[in-house]
Structures are given as C-alpha cells and as structure tokens.
C-alpha cells in the first residue's frame, strides 16, 4: 500500500531553506539556558522541541524571535542571518510566534487581536479573507469576535493566538506549549490543525512542548533539550519507538 506522499516526509529539505541554529548560547546571569545548541528545522516539516521545565525551550523560541539576545551562535532562516533582528522585524521575515495561551491581549476584542496579526503586512484587501479563513478554522472564535479576549476559555485563547499568528501568513510558525492547561481533546484538535497546515500550506513548524506524547503524534522530527543542551535529535517516529530514550527523557 502506497503512503500518501504529503504526510510522510522523507529527507530533510536542503540547508538553505528552513531554520538553522548553530552554537546558540543564551545566558541568564551565570545560568546557561542554552549551551551551544544546534537545531535544524527543515522547511515544510513539523519539528518538536521537547524537554522538562527549565530545559531551555522557551529561551530557544525567544532567541529566534528576537526577545532574547543570544551571547553566541547564529540563527539563519532561508539562508539569511536573523539573529540580532528586533522582534518586530523577525515577523517581517515570515516567522510568526505563538506565545503560550496567556499571550492574548485580554483588553482587545477577538477580532482586534486577529487583525493585529496582519497589520504589518499593510494589505487591507487581504484582511477580510484572512479573517474569514481563521473563523472557518476556529468556529468558536467567530461566535465571540466582538467580545474581549479576557472572556475566552483556555482553549479558545490558544486558538486565538494561533489564528493571530497565522493572520501574518507566515512560512514558519513558532509555538510555545500550545497544550499547556488544555483538555486532551482540545490539544489533539490543535495538533491535528498543525498537521493540516503543514500538509496543505507547507507551513514549517517549530513546536515546543512538554507534552511529548501529543507533540510526537504530529511531528516529523524531534529534538530533546536537557539542561540547555541537545540530548537527542531524531525522526519523531524513531524517538517514539525507542523505549529507552522515551523513558530517559520523556517519562512515558
């Protein structure tokens, strides 16, 4: 039986597309949050970064989007150096960040949050199409478009921050623990949406998760961070199948 090609990626994309991280060092005082980390995020694939609290996952995302200035190392995207760019310019490279669910702007309405995601592109003509697309993808948001984001549930907030990031029509989506505090059913729903975005739009995804089981279910590649270093980098299916690695780093 032939497998559908789109859902079974084989070789990593060539090195000039996607995101490459080399020798990344980020410190908070004397603590090395990231200690010379190398990670490849191939274009059109989902790469999961797993690890416990304090492994350096969030610092990794904040180094990519410019909120944390790395002490050493390079981050290149599509062959271009992006380390050192300000956050407002990183998004202009087609890299959108989904902060953990509390990253909604609670005082603004659902629709205002969504519109903000697309404003830097300056194309008013696309705005309504994109809004319609998001409401189509997340119908729960459509019912609440005029309500402030403070009235949303945890799952709806997560949908809102993902939708808001997609409003910028990114090629690379960075997600920070989308499953945090969500019911398993909602988590599964969000993971399958990510899979659909990869398959349909060839979206590249860097998915930071503590919930390894849900992340591996959708990811193509997996990186395990442990105390700021890369402990394992493998195909997601390999990691999932390797009982020893799973026990050692992922606890299941």
């Amino acid at each position, binding site marked *: 039986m032939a497998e559908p090609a789109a859902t079974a990626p084989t070789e990593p994309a060539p090195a000039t597309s996607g995101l490459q991280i080399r020798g990344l060092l980020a410190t908070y005082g004397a603590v090395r949050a990231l200690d010379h980390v190398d990670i490849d995020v191939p274009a059109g694939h989902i790469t999961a970064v797993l690890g416990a609290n304090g492994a350096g996952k969030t610092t990794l995302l904040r180094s990519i*989007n410019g909120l944390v200035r790395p002490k050493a190392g390079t981050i290149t995207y599509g062959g271009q150096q992006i380390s050192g760019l300000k*956050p407002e310019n990183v998004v*202009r490279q087609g890299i959108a960040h989904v902060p953990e669910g509390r990253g909604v*702007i609670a*005082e603004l309405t659902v629709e205002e949050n969504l*519109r*903000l995601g697309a*404003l830097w592109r300056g194309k008013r003509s696309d705005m309504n199409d994109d809004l319609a697309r998001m409401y189509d993808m997340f119908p729960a948001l459509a019912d609440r478009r005029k309500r402030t984001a*403070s009235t949303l549930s945890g799952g709806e907030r997560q949908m809102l921050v993902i939708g808001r990031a997609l409003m910028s029509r990114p090629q690379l989506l960075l997600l920070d623990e989308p499953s945090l505090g969500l019911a398993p059913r909602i988590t599964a729903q969000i993971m399958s949406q990510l899979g659909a975005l990869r398959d349909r739009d060839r979206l590249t995804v860097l998915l930071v998760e503590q919930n390894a089981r849900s992340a591996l279910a959708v990811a193509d590649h997996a990186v395990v961070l442990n105390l700021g270093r890369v402990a394992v980098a493998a195909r997601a299916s390999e990691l999932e199948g390797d009982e020893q690695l799973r026990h050692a780093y992922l606890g299941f």
Partner: protein
Amino acid sequence: MQFVNLTLTGISNGMIYAAVALALVLIWRATRIINFAQGAMLMFTTFVAKAVIDQTGSYWWGFVAGLACGFAFGAFVELVIVRPVENKPPLNAVIVTLGLLILIQAGAGMLFGVTPESFPPAFGIRGYVLDGQRLLFTSTDLFIVLSILGLALVLLLLFRGTTLGLQMRASAFEPEVARMLGVRVGRMLTLGWGLAAVAGALAGVLIAPQVFLGPYQFDPFLVYGFTAAVIGGLDSPFGSVVGGLILGLTLSYLSGYVDNSLVGLGALAALIVVLMARPEGLFTRTAARKV
C-alpha cells in the same frame, strides 16, 4: 440663576481639568509613568503660542503653534528623556519627570521672565444673555468646552476606529506581544506622548486668559488634572473627561455656595470620597489587568 452660572463655570473649568487629565492618562496607560512635567510642558507651549500671537498678530496661528509645539515637545521628551528609564524601576521615571519639571520652569523663567503676563482669549469675554440676564458663560467658555470635547472625540476615533489606534492600544496593554506581532512599539509610545502633550497644550492655551501666563501659573492645573484622572481611574480616557467634569462642578458649587477659599480642600475631599467608594477609580476594570 446662580445655579446656572455655577454649573456652566463648572463645566468649562471641568473640561480644562479633563484635558490635563487626558494628557496624564494617555501617558500612564502607555508607559505606566505619571508625567509630573506635564504642567510645566503646557506652560512652555503656551509661552510659544503667545510668542507666535505677538509675532503674527493672529490668535489662531498662536493656537495652532501651541498645539504643534506640544506634539513635538511630547514626542521629544519620550524619545530623548523618558526612553532610557522605560522598563526601569518606577522611581527612576518619577525622578526624571520631576527633574524635567524643574528644568522647564527654570528655563521658562530665564527665557520669558517670571512676571505673569496677559494672554488673549479666543473670542469675546461678554457673557451670553438668558432671560434678559447676562450669564457668566462667554463664547470663549463655549469654545473651551467644544474644543476639548472635539479633541476627546478625535482621540476616541483614533483609538477605536483606526489601525494606528489599534496598534497604540496593543502597545499600551502588552508591549512584548505587540512587538512579536510586528507593531513598532517604540514609535507608538512616541506618538502617544506627542498626542498627550497636545491635550496638555490645548488646556494651557485655553486657560491662560484666566490665570495669566507665567512659569508657575499652571501648577494648580497639574494637581486638578491629576485629581480628575484618579477619579476617572487613571486608565480610561473617557474616565478622565467624566472625572474632570465631576471635579469642575464640585469645585464650582463649593466656591459659589460655601466659600471660594475652600476650592483646594474641595478637590482633596472629592478625591478622598471617590477613592473610598471605588479605590480603583470610576472607570477602570482592574480585574482585566494582569500583574
């Protein structure tokens, strides 16, 4: 008749307090800084307006110059003086704005002299006539009320109805998230300070005919404006207009029915009553703000 007069005076004074409160609230909302230099800034821009009126002989050139100078002054202060202390301990900003207050007052004294001078009103100062009696409400007072309401309306439309306003609000509420979404937060803050200073400059030009123009003549208005802003909740531009009107009416009735010398105390009393009843001010939803 006295009641009508006191009410009209209260409204026109209240709108001045509202404009100063608006200047403070816009900055507080965006940067969590109380701009203690606001009273001095509006004094300085009113001097500029006076200089332009004297040069050109036209009130309206001076009026426009005062507001334009206010915008430039506010933007300059944010970019050059306040930017280094943003996201630092709050006390740093307090000290910087207090230092700026002293600097501007001393500078204005040296440049323009310390003796208060007259400032022309926008229109006539003869009161309207009602039932054959002359009111203490002039076309200049009407202009005060309408122009400040107009400014509040323009700000409301800007914040609620434009994408620029949406970006400014996002920058005020969640600067880090706004940056990740591509909003140039630094520019939004500069713009916010500029607009706030326009509100202050407007108050200065409008009140100067009553209090005269001098380096220290506008000090009470910072206090009244701050009181109005706190009554309104410090976070709400709408609240600052309502707070200004409440304060203006309270003080006007107090001076008319009780004693003129109680006005300062009355502001304090109004502040205490509101803070006891609603410590977060009248128009703030504290629950919505995270620590």
